[in-house]
Structures are given as C-alpha cells and as structure tokens.
C-alpha cells in the first residue's frame, strides 16, 4: 500500500482525480480516500505538525503499515533563497530540518527519479522572513536555498514508527507567492496538477519496488504445532524446529518427506517427554 498525506484538500484533489480515489466514509477523524486497485490511501491531515503526526500515526496504525509499503508526503511550500525554486517547481526533499529543535531527518533516496532535489525546513508557522529567520538553525548554517513548510518533519517522525527511511518520500511544490506557502485553493490545485503525471509514474515505480521486498517464507504452522505436540516440545524446542523448517524451505530440502519418514520409522507421536527429546534430536539431524 502507498500512503499519501497532504495537508490540505486542494493538495489532494489532483491525486484523487488521477487515481480515481474513493472517499472512505468509515474514516471520521481525517478525510481519507483510497483505491483498492492502485493500492493507494490518501489522507488529508490538516495544517501543522500536530495534525500531520496525528493523521500519519492514526492511519498507519489502523492499516498496519509496514514492510513493502510506502509513505508519500506532498504539498505546497515556500522557497527561500536565491537562484532556484521558481513558482510551481517540484522538489524531492533529501533532508528535512525541524526548525524548533534543529533536528535533521534524511529520507533515503534509493529510487531513481527525475525531480530536482532540495532541503526542506519545517517550522511551526508559515515562513516569515522577519521572525523565523532568527531561529538558531539559520544562524549556525548558511543555507543558500531551502524549502519551507509546516508538516514534513512531523510526518517523517511519525512515519518512522512504521516505515524505513527508504519507504518515505517528500515532494514539495513551490507556491505562487514563492516566499510564503499561502495559496488559494485554486492555485494549490493547479500547482499539484502540473506534476501529477510525473508523481503518478513515481508511485507506479514504488508499487513495483514494494512488491519485490522480501517478506520471508511462512513456516507451515499447522504442521509445526502438530509436530511439537507429538514430540512434547518446550518453547525452546519449538523455536528450534521452526528455524530448521524455515531453513529447509529456503534451502529446498523436502522437510515434509523427512518428517513423514520420521513418523513412520519412529512410531510418532512420542509417549513421553524423554522419548520426545530423543526424537527431536534425531529429527533435527535428519532435516539438515
């Protein structure tokens, strides 16, 4: 599943239209839209860090987000500094700084993309050259150019409870007013729409990548439980048998045949713990 988080409805509308997402009427706290086919779930968090973190943790907990899934945060931002970041330009953020704490977060940039990259700073309130620029992070470092928003650092921190750094991607589009993120809903819709094709291609690629992530072959639980009962296994013995079977599956060893043979030749189930221990040792030998 790919989880998309936007702060405002107007940032979500191009995604909703492109992927034909349906509203999840069961969701009452946050507006959520989904597509079973595309395996997408889009949530509108509301503005600011608290709302963003609350939405990410709520939706990801409810859906059991984890391995093989991805988080995308997308929205409008301000661009600060000279030379780059024309209105409407889309950036992939490879470094996010939380203004209030100075903490820095680095989403992995494993997957190929054709977007420009930049640093993003997240503040508690919208960019204001007179006030925010006095914050310590900017006094310490000279940043010739950076993007500014009010959610991404919170999304990263909440997201990192569910996702590895390579499973999170942050996209920001520079607002029309450039040095403030203030946009009208119409502008927001238009700016997001400008890049929807590229973003959709990226989503497709993530979906493909997610399907390749190894989950591990499951051990056949029914067989294992039966075997453990018949061998009077303790918890430690069960863990050991589980590991043997897992190895056999991966190494292409016919463990079922070997276990059946053991049943035949040793007259399993065992009659007591002592016999169970002896058969357990023999079975382990036979499995390797």
């Amino acid at each position, binding site marked *: 599943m790919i989880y998309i988080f936007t702060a405002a409805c107007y940032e979500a509308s191009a995604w909703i239209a492109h992927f034909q997402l349906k509203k999840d009427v069961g969701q009452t706290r946050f507006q959520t839209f989904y597509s079973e086919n595309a395996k997408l779930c889009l949530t509108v968090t509301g503005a600011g860090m608290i709302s963003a973190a609350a939405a990410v943790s709520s939706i990801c907990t409810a859906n059991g987000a984890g391995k093989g899934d991805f988080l995308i945060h997308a929205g409008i931002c301000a661009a600060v500094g000279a030379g780059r970041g024309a209105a409407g330009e889309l950036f992939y953020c490879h470094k996010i700084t939380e203004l209030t704490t100075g903490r820095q977060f680095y989403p992995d*940039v494993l997957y190929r993309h054709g977007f420009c990259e930049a640093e993003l700073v997240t503040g508690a309130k919208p960019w204001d050259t007179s006030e925010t620029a006095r914050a310590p992070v900017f006094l310490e470092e000279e940043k010739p150019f950076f993007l500014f928003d009010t959610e991404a650092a919170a999304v990263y921190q909440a997201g*990192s409870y569910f996702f*590895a*750094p390579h499973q999170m991607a942050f996209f920001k589009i520079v607002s029309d007013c450039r040095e403030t993120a203030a946009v009208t809903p119409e502008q927001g819709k238009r700016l997001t729409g400008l890049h929807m094709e590229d973003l959709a291609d990226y989503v497709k690629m993530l979906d493909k990548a997610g399907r390749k992530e190894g989950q591990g072959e499951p051990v056949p639980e029914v067989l294992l439980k039966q075997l453990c009962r018949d061998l009077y296994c303790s918890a430690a013995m069960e863990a050991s048998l589980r590991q043997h079977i897992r*190895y056999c599956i*991966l190494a292409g060893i016919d463990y079922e045949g070997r276990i059946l043979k053991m049943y035949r030749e040793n007259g399993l189930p065992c009659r007591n713990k002592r016999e169970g221990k002896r058969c357990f040792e023999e079975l382990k030998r036979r499995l*390797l």
Partner: protein
Amino acid sequence: MKSLREDCYNSFFSHIYVEQAVKNHPRTKQALARFQDARVIEIGHYKDVFCRRGQDFLQQHRSQKLILAGKPGTLLYPGAAVCPSFGNDHFYYTSCVMNCIYNCEYCYLKGMYPSANIVWFVNLEDFFSETDRMLKQHPMYLCISYDTDLLAMEAVTGYVREWMRFADSREQLKLEIRTKCADRSFFEQTEPVCGVVFAFTMSPQRVIEAYEHGTPSLAQRIDCAAEAVRRGFSVRLCFDPMIYVPDWEAEYDRMLEQIFRKLPAGRLSDVSVGTFRVPQDYLKNMRRQEPDSAVVQFPYQNCGGVYQYPADLAGRMEGYLTKRLAEEIPEDKLFLWKQEG
C-alpha cells in the same frame, strides 16, 4: 525486459553525505571530484545518517551512498574473539572505512551496522598517529580490512597503498588486508612491503554464486592471488568462513584442486580455516534483515553467545579441509580457528 535494478534504483554513490567538519578536507574534495554527478548533502555528524532508526540494509545495498566523515576518539580496537590472531600477541583491528561494496549474505556487517551506506573516514593521519602511539608500547598485528573490503575500495580511497607506505618504515607493525577483490592491476602496479599480508578469502564457486553477491569468481581470486605471489607479496589464504552446502566435501575438493593448480602452496605465507560463526546479537539482526537467506536462516547453535554450526558438522567440515590442506601446507602454516574458553 528490464530488471528492477535498471528501472528503479539510483546508481552507486548517487548521493554523498558530507560532515560539515570535513567538507574542506583534501580527501573530501578528491571524492567529490571523482563522483561529480553525485548530489552532495551536508550533515552534522555521520551518525545522523548512518544510525537512523529502522533502516533496511538490503534495500540500501541496492543503491549505496557514501558518507564522508571524520572519526574522533578510539581508532584501534583489540581483535575480536571470533577472529583469528595467527599467533600474534598484540592483535588489533581498525575501521577507516565502514561497510562493503560486496554483498555476502552471511556478512556480519548486516548484523553489526544499522545501515548499508559506506562511511569513509577521511582523517587517516589520525589512525596513523594512534598506531604510532601504540607501537611505542609494543609491536602490533593490525587488521585494517575487517569491516569493509579495503582493496575493493582502493580506486575510491587509495587507503591500501597509504597504509602500505606507512607500514614500510615501521618494522614492528604487521598489517593484514583481508579481501575477496581480484584486482590484479593493484599487484602489478604496487611494490610489496615487508610485514603486509594480503589475505584472500577463498570459497567454492557454488558458495560464491549462492551467497557472495557481487564478488569476483573463484578463478579470478586465484589468478589475483597467484599474481600477488609471483610479484613477491605475502599472501594468506582464508578458508574462513567455510559455508555448509549440500555436497560440501566435493565442492571444497574442487576448490582446492583449482587453487593448487595455479598457486604454489610452498610460497603461501599461511592458511586459515574456520567454519561460519557470528555473535548472537548480529545473527538476530541478520535474520530480521534477510528473511529469505538460507545461509542466515540455518539453524545454528548458540555456543557461549556465538552462533555456529552444530559441533559435529563444524568438526567434520574443518577436519576435512585441514586434512586436505595438510597434504599441501606445512602444519605450522595452518591455522584453525577455535573458540576460547
């Protein structure tokens, strides 16, 4: 059809993270000049990137990034109990590069480090100073290629040659450079230095194909080791870790035959043998990272905090190989790893 790698992943070192403190270091400049297309991201401390929560080692390995940093504090460490000392009293190791461009499934680095990205400590002179400080107290046997394959990184770092130059004027220092790299040109273009031993890890081709991803073939390793021997370098062969595969006797037989057809046993410095073993905490992490790897999911036995093959299997494997090697190598040159205590 294109593979996922071609389609999806950024290239090796597509991004370089640079600690602010070393951004003007000559080696940093050298690295950035070499990888001109890389995006450079400034960081405060290498651990801000390297030690992030929940990183996926395997995924990151598909697009490794480079982290340029300076290492403060302790730079040399006493050799670990799971590593052989080859009869040396003052056995140390150091990590001026962390992580490896190769991708051996059984590599303990996957259990030890939280990230697959490569950290290059550019302050090599500090490593030299600490080595000199220690050499004033006693001679040293120092392994410089444990937590990486330093020779495989030579084109990027040049550290093997720098260490060799350093060792050249220090009689009390013995260096071991462990490698699976098969870069013959290094040996063609470099003069041997007394006290520097190149330890080539040898594995049956079947093990290489199954578990040592991205590494040179057995034939290439043999060729390279033979070239090193021919040019007067001190060469050690490491049959360590021995990895269990079905029909392992035949696989190891074939490997030995291939090796001694090309390598004059009498000119080897020494040989080491040891079956796979790994500290328990590392294996736990490795199993989480590699749920689909047979070599990692093997039901090893925990023996005093170290996971290893069941004693009878390990004994058979080591016994078999040492017996075969003893036909070629004098006993005093054969080292078998044994757990202490």
